[in-house]
């Protein structure tokens, strides 16, 4: 099962490293990353594989949200299906 991770916050050193380390700790594999910085704001979208995730997806959502808060970021994990359903026929 794939999920989309969206990370938004003020840019600084180590955001990707921090997020990827956290995901690795949950055994989540990163498949694709698209990242940009606009007017000092960091925006990243990642496609990840959560089939091997060490915790249930709902818990991953909560934990990544907490980790994001500690890092001063918004980290959102959502199943990819929601975007597929809305934008692809």
């Amino acid at each position, binding site marked *: 099962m794939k999920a989309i991770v*969206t990370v938004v916050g003020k840019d600084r050193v180590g955001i990707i490293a921090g997020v990827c380390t956290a995901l690795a700790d949950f055994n989540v594999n990163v498949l694709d990353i698209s990242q940009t910085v606009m007017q000092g704001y960091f925006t990243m979208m990642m496609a990840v594989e959560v089939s091997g995730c060490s915790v249930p997806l709902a818990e991953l959502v909560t934990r990544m949200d907490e980790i994001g808060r500690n890092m001063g970021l918004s980290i959102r994990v959502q199943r990819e299906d*929601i*975007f*597929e359903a809305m*934008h692809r026929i």
Partner: protein
Amino acid sequence: MMNRNDILATQDMIDKRHLDIRTITMGISLLDCCDPDLEACCEKIYRKITRCAKNLVPVGEAIEKEFGIPIVNKRISVTPIAIVAGACETDSYVRIAQTLDAAAEACGVNFIGGFSALVQKGAAMGDWKLIHSIPEAMAATNRVCASVNVGSTKAGINMDAVAEMGRVIKKTAELTAHDDGLGCAKVVVFANAVEDNPFMAGAFHGVGEPECVLNVGVSGPGVVYHALQSVKGQPFDVVAETVKKTAFQITRMGQLVGKEASERLGIPFGIVDLSLAPTPAVGDSVARILEEMGLEVCGTHGTTAALALLNDAVKKGGVMASNHVGGLSGAFIPVSEDEGMIAAAESGVLCLDKLEAMTCVCSVGLDMIAVPGDTSAATISAIIADEAAIGMVNSKTTAVRIIPAPGKVVGDRVEMGGLLGSAPVMPVHEPSSEAFIARGGRIPAPLQSLKN
């Protein structure tokens, strides 16, 4: 990977435009709970509901989390209680309403629908018992919703039931006077009621439905409103197309959530009800969509045409997005639950007569309307009769959910709280309909040809 803009667009709809799944509603058949002994019947009902729906709320919450989309309500609808309780040796079904209330509380759902009777052509013993139990049942419970179908295109209008419902609504208001007649917000009078409606207060699980089924109601007035802001001044062809595309996207979300939830619950997926259901929150209003089409205030001339376009475009967009579309599907126009409708009613532009005209083209009817506390039962019955006639002749569902707020007069406001919002008390016509309602009997079913 998914297109970056698509991801942002979806998140934007959820975060800023109030996109949500309004309800996942589990329909449960109670036909196997019939018993001549009232207590035994209640016991069977409680057991069956709590067994079937025990996972409804946890499953809903897990899906909310995983998809990142709010599922605002998790609800239950059951077989019309007038049918289930028909065999019970009792004169009052209040005890059954209390059982439904307890079962709903045990399952963690906020409303349970199905304290209902279908009497469009005539009422059986159980139907009358149910109708007479409504006021006390509404006062004695918090989560139970009642509905009575008084007319249909095939059967005509049961005017005896219409007359009785006027009195029932008045009595319900009196018994819940301490809450401004809040009990009436849980009572709907229908014509052409549908069997798979997931929205309250009118949801019930029809006898043509399976043992257990999951129906989904989507929402999204805010998303449609926002989409229309990008086509200001353009012709109606463009407006209709924009609404269709947006409705498609909203409905796809409902289809996805419904499919996922029904799989996890191990029950069949029924329908998606693709309704634009407003809330009192700013930016989640159907009235504001109509105003965005170019009307200064909702309720002015042109409102019915705007609503007709909206209602039709929502259906057209949604139909392709879902395997099975059902329920009420269209645009709801509840006054108290829609920030723009409240403002329009308070300004005096939106009146009861205009709302009635709007119900000819919207998905349901006169919904969540507060009228003065001294409005007579006959006047309420006459309002119901008018609304049922619109439904009967136009082969559509119509409904009346009206609150004669005790002690309130025109200009006052009735606060109902939460999603029910607050309603300005609207004036009704003073001249009497007493003799009209006193006739009783049945208005014959209309001709279905020679349509002009």
